[in-house]
């Protein structure tokens, strides 16, 4: 099952880094709205980095930590977005409920598709993830009356947060919304960190390291691949729900396989063998994509070149590259 272990893999510890790392990472994230403007960024872009970072970190639970390849995570990202959108558009004006429903939709799909795929391995598994994601895309695209079809689900907006009598209005205020996203992001990464230090998390790493050994210690490999897949889709669907809240719409492109590829490249670009690598990858990718698409009509080529360059020149990702340099 070691389909994704990079060449010359360095020890990927479940640990989320030393205290110093954590302090630096959180300081950067918390202060982002203060300095984003100076480097040409804006609050929505910062939110986007966090959202895709979360999606990529969720994928990386599977890719980097369990060693199982998914190229269809757009499905769970997109379903998270649609789930949130459905609540706001058709049901109640509540941001927390929207997020919960997004998670529910994405994770239920993860449970179902995962059950159908868990016995397959390697490239077969990867192809199935792509196919299942395409099913979701296809449904969203053609079920016009519910999803809005090609134009997407529109006509909703995120609702203010009610904390008892205190109201936080994240509607128009990008900075406040950024902190809301950061709050959700913090909870999710905290959960991931705890998970990876738990017995369940260790079984995931055991599968990556040697699935045969794991099986002959009494770990039912397929069941644990399934669980890892579900957990991974859970976090990716949280990101999807936030994405819908950020844009105030959900459209089929969120489910398209291009998004799947983007999430994978973010994880690989940052360094899929480290906990925070995918966040770094997301930051670089999202900012570059934003810059390039505003600079040239040939942005597709640039994106393509990023993919090719990462594969050919930085297979260990930026963090892996830096660590090798310093080693």
């Amino acid at each position: 099952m070691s389909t994704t272990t990079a060449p010359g893999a360095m020890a990927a510890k479940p640990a989320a880094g030393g205290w110093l790392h954590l302090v630096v990472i959180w300081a950067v994230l918390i202060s982002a709205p203060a300095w984003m403007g100076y480097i040409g960024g804006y609050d929505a872009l910062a939110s986007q980095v966090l959202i895709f970072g979360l999606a990529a970190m969720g994928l990386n639970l599977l890719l980097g930590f369990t060693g199982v390849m998914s190229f269809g995570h757009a499905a769970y990202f997109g379903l998270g977005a649609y789930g949130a959108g459905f609540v706001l558009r058709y049901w109640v004006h509540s941001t927390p409920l929207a997020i919960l429903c997004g998670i529910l939709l994405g994770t239920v799909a993860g449970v179902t598709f995962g059950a159908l795929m868990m016995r397959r391995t390697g490239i077969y598994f990867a192809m199935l993830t792509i196919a299942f994601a395409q099913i979701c895309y296809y449904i969203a695209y053609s079920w016009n009356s519910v999803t809005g079809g090609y134009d997407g689900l529109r006509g909703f907006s995120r609702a203010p947060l009610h904390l008892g009598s205190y109201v936080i209005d994240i509607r128009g205020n990008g900075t406040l919304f950024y902190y809301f996203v950061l709050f959700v992001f913090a909870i999710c990464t905290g959960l991931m960190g705890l998970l990876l230090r738990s017995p369940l998390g260790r079984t995931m790493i055991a599968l990556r390291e040697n699935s045969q050994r794991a099986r002959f210690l009494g770990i039912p490999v397929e069941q644990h691949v399934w669980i890892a897949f579900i957990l991974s889709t859970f976090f990716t669907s949280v990101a999807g729900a936030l994405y819908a809240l950020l844009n105030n719409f959900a459209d089929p492109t969120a489910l398209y396989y291009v998004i799947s590829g983007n999430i994978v490249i973010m994880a690989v670009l940052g360094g899929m063998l480290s906990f925070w690598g995918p966040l770094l990858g997301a930051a670089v990718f999202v900012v570059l994509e934003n810059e390039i698409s505003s600079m040239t009509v040939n942005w597709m080529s640039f994106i393509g070149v990023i993919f090719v360059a990462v594969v050919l020149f930085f297979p260990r990702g930026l963090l892996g590259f830096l660590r090798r340099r310093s080693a």
Partner: protein
Amino acid sequence: MLTLVLFNLTNGIILGLFYVLMALGVSLILNLSNVINFAHGNFLALGGYFAFSLAPYLGYWGAFIVAPILVGVIGVIVEQTMIKRVYPRPHVYSLLLTFGLAFIIQDMCRTIWGVNGLPLSIPNALNSPLSNQFFFLTGYRIFLVAVVIVAVAALFAFLGFTRVGTRIRAGTFDLDTVSALGINIGLLRALNFGLGIGLAGLAGVLAGGQIGLNPNMGDDLVLPSFIAIIIGGIGSLTGTLVGGLIIGIASAVTSIWWSAGSEVIIYIMMVIILVARPRGIMGEEGMMT
């Protein structure tokens, strides 16, 4: 009514043939090199555009022959400069690489030939309907069916009866042993890659005459061709052919009464096959799973 049934059925069959042609190319590459080619649909587009640009100089028939070969040659160059470097690496890298290539090729097509659709004109002899009632049964469509049948038969004959073909089949099983028998497996893989891409190029020329040219004309065929491979069973080219035909026929039949359902049905079939026969129709224990 009969006209409508036949109309949808023909459309479905034509679509199914494109699935077959694409899936066989993807499968060839997957079986020998273990690479999923996301850019396969973009090579298809290149085939169509090459034919468009060559036709003024070579005529339709010249372009028809030369364009797929040219696309195959480009496939070999891409394989030699990039793809072969990720063979020893985990699958995620080859997926990302072909994914990136898909972007680059599509953007090249946009830049060179423009964003808007272009027509690929076909000889008048092929263009006219055979009868007024069955207006959709043009000579071109019959020609298309014939070409695909000949191409598929030629491919299987090549793999089954020639030495190189036998070596490719042996290589899908054990490349080390093939090389120990004096065969340059680097060359074998390059050739095989070129062959698979050439099939996409041929599909592109054929599709261009049917639906015209645009930069993402192949995109909608890529995923169905993956499904054809999954349904047929990974590792078996015969399985891919069967899988391609099955989804082709299924979408043709579905389109008789539900024309929008022609794509839905192939996903439904995939799920059914996965539950009922997890290795696919012709998939065998231990082959590339």
